[in-house]
C-alpha cells in the first residue's frame, strides 16, 4: 500500500515508545503522534523506584528522555500533533490529525490516561492557582507552606513525599482508613515528619479568592465538617483513559477503557491498544512498556501474514 504507514502509534508514554522501539527495529514504516513529543505521564512524575534496572531510582522525566532517545535512535519518528479521530472500519485505517489524514496498515493506541478531578467547587477555578495535578511542576512554588495531597495510592504518597522537600507540612487526605499504595511507600510516608494524615475524609470544596486558601473537609464516618488551611492542594485520586477520540472507532467499556483481549487486540482487526488506555489493573511504567512491546511484536506478525493490507 503506497503512501500508507505500516504502523501508526497514537500516544507516546512507556507503552507507545516501547512499541515504537520494537516496530522501528522490525524495520516497519512507523510514525508516532503525540502532541507533547512523548514521555506521557512520566514527564509529570518524580522518582520512579520500581522500574527494573534502576536500583537507585530514576526521575520520571529522565526515564521518559531515555525511552524517547532509545526509540528515536532506531528510527521512530515522533510527530508533535494530537490525533483527533481514528477511522478504523476500512483498510488502510485513517488517522486524523490537524495536518491531515494519515493512512495506516495497523494502529496501536497508547494514549494513556489523565488525572481524575475531584469535581468539587473551586477545583476548576483555582487550577494553576494552588490546585495541581503535577508535583514535579509545582512543588517548588510552595516553599515553606502548608499543602494537602488528596488520594491514597502510589501517586499520592510518592508525590506527597516529594512535596515535603519544599513544603512545611503535607496533609494527606484519604477517604478510607488505609492506603492502597505500595508498602515501601507507606513506610516512607509514615516515617516522614512533615507528613500528616487525615483518614476517612473527603474534600467538599476548595476555597480561595484568587488562590487556594483552605479546604472544606468532611469525615465520612461521623459527618463532621472541618476546614483545613492550606495554600495548595495536589490531587492524585486516579486517572481516566484518554479515549474520547476513539469511542466511535473501537469498543470501550463503561469507564472509557478500550476493551482488549489477551493479545492487546481491540474490537477492530488491525487496531491494538497498550498501556493505561486499556489497563485497569497494573498501570505501571514497566507493564505499559511490556504491553507496548507485545503489541508491536503482534503487529509485525500480522503485517507479515497480511501483505495485501
Amino acid at each position, binding site marked *: 500500500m503506497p503512501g500508507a504507514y505500516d504502523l501508526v502509534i497514537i500516544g507516546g508514554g512507556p507503552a507507545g515508545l516501547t512499541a515504537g522501539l520494537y516496530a522501528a527495529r522490525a524495520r516497519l514504516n512507523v510514525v508516532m503522534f503525540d502532541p507533547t513529543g512523548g514521555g506521557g505521564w512520566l514527564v509529570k512524575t518524580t522518582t520512579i523506584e520500581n522500574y527494573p534496572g534502576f536500583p537507585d531510582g530514576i526521575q520520571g522525566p529522565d526515564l521518559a528522555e531515555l525511552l524517547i532517545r532509545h526509540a528515536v535512535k532506531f528510527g521512530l519518528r515522533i510527530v508533535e500533533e494530537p490525533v483527533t479521530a481514528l477511522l478504523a472500519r476500512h483498510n488502510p485505517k485513517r488517522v486524523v490529525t490537524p495536518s491531515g489524514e494519515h493512512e495506516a496498515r495497523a494502529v496501536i493506541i497508547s494514549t494513556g490516561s489523565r488525572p481524575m478531578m475531584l469535581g468539587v467547587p473551586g477545583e476548576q477555578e483555582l487550577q494553576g492557582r494552588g490546585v495541581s495535578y503535577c508535583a514535579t511542576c509545582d512543588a517548588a512554588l510552595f516553599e515553606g507552606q502548608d499543602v494537602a495531597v488528596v488520594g491514597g495510592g502510589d501517586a499520592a504518597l510518592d508525590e506527597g513525599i516529594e512535596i515535603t522537600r519544599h513544603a512545611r507540612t503535607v496533609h494527606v487526605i484519604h477517604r478510607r482508613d488505609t492506603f492502597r499504595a505500595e508498602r515501601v511507600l507507606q513506610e516512607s510516608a509514615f516515617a516522614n515528619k512533615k507528613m500528616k494524615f487525615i483518614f476517612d475524609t473527603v474534600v467538599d470544596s476548595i476555597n480561595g479568592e484568587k488562590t487556594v486558601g483552605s479546604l472544606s473537609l468532611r469525615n465520612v464516618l461521623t459527618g463532621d465538617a472541618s476546614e483545613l488551611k492550606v*495554600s495548595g492542594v495536589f490531587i492524585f485520586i486516579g486517572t481516566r483513559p484518554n479515549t474520547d477520540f476513539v469511542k466511535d472507532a473501537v469498543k470501550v467499556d463503561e469507564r472509557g477503557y478500550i476493551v482488549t483481549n489477551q493479545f492487546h487486540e481491540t474490537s477492530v482487526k488491525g487496531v491494538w491498544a497498550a498501556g493505561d488506555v486499556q489497563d485497569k489493573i497494573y498501570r505501571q511504567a514497566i507493564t505499559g512498556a511490556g504491553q507496548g512491546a507485545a503489541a508491536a511484536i503482534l503487529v509485525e506478525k500480522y503485517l507479515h501474514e497480511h501483505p495485501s493490507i
Partner: protein
Amino acid sequence: MIKLMDIAADTFASEVLDSATPVVVEFYTQTCKFCKRFEPVVESLADKYEGKVRFRRIDAAQNREIAVQYDIFGVPTTLIFRNGEVVERISGFVPEEELARKIDGVLE
C-alpha cells in the same frame, strides 16, 4: 528559532510592565519538564510575532514575589501583558494555535 530570554524580579518592570508592545510571559520552574516541552511552542510563536509582541520567560520558583503577585501557583502558566496589565492568563500546556488565538485577540 528565537530562544526565550529569561527575566527576573529586578528586570520585570522594564521588560514587561513598561513595554510599549504586548508581552507574553512564560512562568516555569526548573523541575517542570512539562514546561520544557512547552517552550518550543512559545518559541515558535516568538518567531512568528517578532517585532509585534515581546516574549520572555521567568522562573516562578526563583522569583517568588513576582509569582505570588500574579497568583502563579502552577506552571506552565502564560500571562499576556498589555500596558502593564494582565489581559490573558493561560494555564498549562496548550497547542500553538490556541496560544496564537489568544495573542491575536490581544493585538486586535
